[in-house]
């Protein structure tokens, strides 16, 4: 199952920021992680991922660095900036509030806080 475009537009950047908060990652790695960790819900191809990464980079939420990997090929690694960390924190709080609201409305299942 894939999210609708509008939902993806809201959830995608937060998901990417969250993945990058653990460690720096390159493009394909991000695609795989998003697909596997969300059971395909937040899976996205390069046509969605890279423009999203460029947008986050333009906003100084992430930064990129070309480096040679162990296999000798060049890869572009993305990592979170200080601004990105703050943004992630803020987004997570928002999502938490949202999910609680959804639970209280019965849209999501779970215990009320």
């Amino acid at each position, binding site marked *: 199952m894939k999210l609708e475009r509008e939902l993806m537009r809201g959830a995608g950047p937060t998901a990417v920021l969250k993945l990058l908060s653990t460690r720096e990652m*390159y*493009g*394909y*790695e991000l*695609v*795989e992680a998003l697909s596997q960790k969300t059971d395909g819900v937040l899976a996205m*191809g*390069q*046509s*969605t991922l*890279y*423009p*999203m990464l*460029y*947008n986050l*980079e*333009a906003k100084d939420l992430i930064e990129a*660095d*070309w*480096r*040679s990997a162990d*296999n000798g*090929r*060049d*890869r*572009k690694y993305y990592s979170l900036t200080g601004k990105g960390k703050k943004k992630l924190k803020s987004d997570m709080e928002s999502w938490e509030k949202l999910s609680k609201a959804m639970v209280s409305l019965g849209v999501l299942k779970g215990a009320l806080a």
Partner: protein
Amino acid sequence: MNDSSKLNPWQWAITHSPILHTLRWMRYKCLKIGSPNQQAKSIVLRAELPIDIENLIVTTTTKSKLWSVERVEIARELIAHAQDAIEAGRTSEEISEQFGDPKRVAKLMRRSMKRKRPLYWRTYRNTKRVILGSLAIMLLFYGSLAFRFYTGKPKVRSNYIADLNALNEGYSEDQKSWKVLMDVGLQWGQQLWVFENALREQGDDSGLLRSESISQFFQRIDESHPEYDGFVQLINGFEIELTRLREAATREVIGLPVGFESTEVEWEGRSWTTGIIPATNEDYKSNSMIGVLLPHLGNVRRLGQLLVFDSHIALIEDDVDRYVQDLLAAMGLVRQVKQEPYLISKLVGIAIHKLIINELHSTLKNNPGLLNNDQIVKLAHLNAEVGAQEGFGMGTERISFYDLVQRMYTDDGNGNGHLTSEGINWLSQYSEPDRVGRNSSVIEILMNEESVIQLIRPISIVRSMDRKSELRLYNNHLNSVERVVDDGPEYFGSIIDLEASSSFYSYDSDPTFFSLAKVMMPALGNSLNRYYTHKQECIGLGTMLAIESFRLKESRLPERLDDLVPGYLPRLPTDYMDPGQSLKYNISTDGYVLYSIGSDGDDDGGKLDEDSMSGNKITSIDVFSLRFQSTIDPKSGLAQFGNQGQPILAEPVGPDGDWILFDSRHMSE
């Protein structure tokens, strides 16, 4: 960190300088050198990916239309992605399927990549967008103006010519004098022409008979003039026509029909106007009131001169009856021509009346007792009729303007509209632009170029007034003039402001601004001075004739002007220089002096102002303007009025002295 991720100085410069980037783009576009995709493509080829994936990436970078360094960046990223996917065991089909439509990918990439561009570039792009956007809006705005200006069609709906022709309705042909005036005028003109040619052949080319000033005409043709006898002979030989003219001058009206084309005959190698072709009911559609011909006015003026001069000859020949008949006929012409609805006609009448007054002044002063009471009464009555004729032709000026407006402006059905190209072109046939001698700057040279003028002229729609505003401006001006005519010369100040504002306007100087009202606004200050001078002189002449009548009956002069009322005058003679007061009259042992207090506004006891007057003739044409100066508000620059709408007058600035209307004493003039 890999060095390849860093930009070399040239790439950095290209990335940060919009100018360098533009130059590079132009080099590619114009010279087809250095395709921005070349580097990205070679990187893709070197990566040795499956051909379908390779094509996808090349297509994406090509379609992205980004800068070269940005395409390289995208290519490297997508190559790395594809290689990782292959390493992870994905097939090229799976990778291609996940890639999606390269055009859409390129579009998304381009949009996001541009957000990463430096602040300089974004500022440049935004500035360019604002400028281009503004230009586009201006172009759109100009386009709509040009469309309105060049496609707007005036609609000629009102037939004002019919209004003018209606004035002659109700009169039979034998009550109209215009045919006689044209015929006698033609013959007199031809006789004068022959006479003048004869003088010229003798070496006298002084333009004697065509002098601009009528008063000069009389000053130069006197009994001492070498050609006096010849001129008298010429007039005496014209007696039959003069008899026709005297009869015609008693008719009700001139009655010239409105027309746009004259009839002419060829005689002695030149064209002579004989009459007019009356306009048809349809002529108003293609002819404006500006084009109305008044060919009789020149004749009326010349025939008025002829009659007054013949009266002069009659006096020398002791033919008093002919003398009076001529002056009555001349006065009849004045009555007829002043009755016409045109301002110019009224001015011609005023000019002829001036000649009559001069002649009677001379006679009553030098030959008192020459005229009998019956003759005096006839002259006085006709003079009173002429003096009482109201109006100054403003009605015709007004409808002439309305006629122009309907030919130049569109009509939205509510009386409003805008200026049109058709209207401007139509007006230019009457008013050729005078652009010579104004080429002192580049702007002025450009402004003289017809193509430039045509290009910028639509702007005049927004810079100029609309139809309603033009009508309002013009009507305000004419209303103020009519107020002077109707309410008295003390309202003079209110029209001077409008004239001053229009005197600086020339529609040729700025093609983006046009005001029909200002172009057509007549400068009426001088004419109004003549109008009131004429009215004052009519009153003066009437009073003079009443005094002469009194003297004949009583064998003495009246002690006061009150002695003339009501037996000789219906009321005391008005002094227009002294509102509410009558003319002044001083009697002495050797005669009397009749005078107005003059343009200085105070009674100097009948003292002649030597600066502005000569003898009993006013030479200054602005006597009333000098007398009735309005107080000007220093802020608005406009005349000030009191609560009742009356002007607040300033101190008069006329020269010291009085305006002598008649001095019967044999003193120096």
